């Protein structure tokens, strides 16, 4: 399952470990991004929240494990640094907490470019992916791939690259990466890689059937990571085709890894689009700290006319306001979705959806820009997207009016 709904490219890669199978824990999604530039914003922000007395007895927060943060400067060898950085990236993935990306970035500051080993380069590519610095990520992956290094590292680099290219809609490049992967690591993950590219380029039916058959055959002997990967990809293609078994596929994928924030969001989105907001609420319960799940939850609350929506809307607005102040419009897709489906502001939604579509072209990104351009009456943008889809023979049930 490469990504379906929100696959920021950072989502999946099999980790910086030695084998792909070791990557299960690293495969979380839900990440965040954030490139902040110095910026002086123009619009006005709310007054600062009030200063209150500190309640002596109350527990203010539970701290995550921060033991790794101190001491980044004391790492003597590239291996020590890589272990530390990998732990940060892993914490960022499994918790959806972007502060760990900042600690990873800080750790890289201790290592000048000339001293980066292939493993550090690959970790930096992964970090840059999470920060939506796709070109930087690609450059680092190219270095790992084109220089003599550990074959396992190269395999991982090809897989991250395949994912990155697929998410950005560069299917020719993605296909090359999947093929490279094939010669090094045949199996369900490689088959998923090819299936997704095929599905995005007009051969969804064939892709689904082949991957489905292969998954069935491999069920008994494949590792759990590979099976979860294939199930996610099948769910993704089933959603693209509006197959009746899409829901069961999402449920299977989630059951294989309930901590996978990406699958959770993709399934919640599916539920919302199929008018099952109650189930979407259950699925997003307790995940409000993750932006995309919180936005999906607010849409479900709106579908249900639930009075709890007002409070969540306020919190989301505060979050997006802080993010805008920061100057990085990180979750452009989430913000656009929120503006379009909750705030009824198609103009603003279009702006962010369009910016998002410049770098990320998963079907969910494409569906959003098509809906936003229709709502905001932007026929030119719509035409650009349609032409792009036509050139790739991409068809998707989420934008049936664009079916060829």
């Amino acid at each position, binding site marked *: 399952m490469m990504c379906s709904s929100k696959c920021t490219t950072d989502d999946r890669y099999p980790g910086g470990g030695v084998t792909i199978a070791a990557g299960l824990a690293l495969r979380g999604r839900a990440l965040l991004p954030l490139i902040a530039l110095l910026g002086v914003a123009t619009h006005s922000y709310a007054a600062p929240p009030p200063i209150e007395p500190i309640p002596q007895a109350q527990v203010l927060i539970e701290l995550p494990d921060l033991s790794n943060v101190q001491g980044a400067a004391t790492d003597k060898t590239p291996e020590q640094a890589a272990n530390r950085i990998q732990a940060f990236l892993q914490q960022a993935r499994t918790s959806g907490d*972007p502060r760990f990306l900042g600690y990873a970035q800080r750790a*890289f500051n201790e290592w000048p470019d000339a001293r980066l080993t292939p493993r550090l380069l690959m970790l930096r590519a992964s970090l840059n992916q999470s920060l939506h610095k796709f070109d930087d990520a690609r450059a680092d992956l190219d270095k790992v791939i084109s220089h003599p290094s550990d074959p396992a590292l190269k395999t991982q680099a090809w897989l991250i690259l395949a994912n990155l290219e697929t998410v950005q809609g560069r299917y020719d490049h993605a296909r090359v990466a999947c093929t490279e992967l094939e010669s090094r690591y045949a199996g369900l993950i490689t088959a998923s890689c090819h299936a997704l590219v095929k599905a995005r380029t007009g051969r969804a039916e064939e892709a689904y059937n082949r991957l489905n058959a292969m998954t069935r055959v491999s069920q008994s002997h494949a590792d759990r990571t590979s099976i979860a990967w294939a199930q996610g990809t099948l769910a993704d293609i089933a959603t693209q085709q509006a197959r009746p078994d899409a829901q069961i596929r999402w449920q299977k994928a989630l059951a294989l890894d309930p901590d996978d924030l990406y699958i959770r969001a993709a399934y919640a989105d599916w539920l919302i689009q199929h008018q099952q907001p109650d189930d979407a609420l259950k699925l997003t319960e307790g995940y409000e700290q993750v932006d995309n799940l919180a936005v999906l939850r607010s849409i479900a609350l709106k579908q249900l006319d639930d009075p709890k929506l007002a409070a969540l809307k306020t919190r989301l607005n505060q979050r997006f306001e802080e993010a805008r*102040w920061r100057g990085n419009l990180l979750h452009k897709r989430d913000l656009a979705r929120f503006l379009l489906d909750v705030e009824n502001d198609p103009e603003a939604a279009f702006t962010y959806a369009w910016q998002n579509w410049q770098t990320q072209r998963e079907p969910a990104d494409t569906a959003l820009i098509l809906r936003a351009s229709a709502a905001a009456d932007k026929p030119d943008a719509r035409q650009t997207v349609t032409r792009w889809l036509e050139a790739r023979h991409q068809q998707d049930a989420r934008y049936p009016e664009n079916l060829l």
Partner: protein
Amino acid sequence: MAHKASDGFVYLDQREADQTIRVDLAVRDLALVVALDHNRDQQVTGAELNQARADITRYIEQGLTLSSSAGNCRLSGDQWGMTRHSDGPYASARYGIDCPEGTVASTLHYQLLFEVDSLHRGLIQRMGAEGEQLASLSPDSNTLSLSGAAMPLWQTFADFLWQGVVHLVLGFDHVLFLLVLILPATLRHDATGAAGRTTLKQRLWQLAGIVSAFTVAHSITLVLAALNIVQPPIAWIEIIIALSIALAALNLFFPVLGRKTWKLAFGFGLIHGFGFASVLSDLASGTSQKVTALAGFNIGVELGQLTLVALVFPLLYLMGSHRVYQRAAVPAMALVVSAIALYWAAERFAGLPAM
């Protein structure tokens, strides 16, 4: 509570004469830089946060610097407590800002938390008389210029014009130097008793020549220094300025530097220009409109100078008809001025940093 990247919130209020600043840092972030979780149970309680108050405020004060044209400003604690942003509890500290000589902070330098988190950002909201300014500071761009951002050009020009007038009038060394320069033109007879009487018209021409020479000279060096083309050591410039006054005064009686006062005015004017420039560079550090500031300041200096001459010259000229003025007042003035100037020179020399 949301997960988000780390931000520090800074609210700077410069709408009133009493400037204040408030800094909110996430408890989660503070746990990385001060000892918060004393019992190591992975929880931070209100009591633990209060206990760390001194450490936290010390941390904030070392990582946040406000400065004005006159130097670094002092923060004085005003309020302490907690607040909430979208990702949870924050420690919040409010300070009064005391800048030297009652100036307004013009630069904010932020480097909190960058040592542990390269994606940390300082989110600055500044309320000024001209409105609101928002910024996001990062490790690569950690300094914010607070003044001039929204100031119209004419305002900058007017402000610096006034500064120029004020600096000339209140900067006694320039006033004294000018006074000594115009003294010869107030004497109906040359102090040396040579040559015959000169007419008022000739006196005025002489005066115009002296003032113009001084103006042209200090304008040249002011521009050169303000545009960073020449950067002489300001401590020595200040000493030479003091000596120039004494020399000019002594030259009235012992014309070691010649009788052509305008030449004297031009020569020392060059030095005085550097003195003006050092004041201007301090004042203009917060503005991006340097050229406008320079023009305003220079014209302000000239206006101040002309006003002074217009007020003082007629007075001295009228007194010039009295023998007492010529015989006693002028030598007395010259002596007093020389004494003051030499005292300044000595004082400034003593204040030089050890070599």
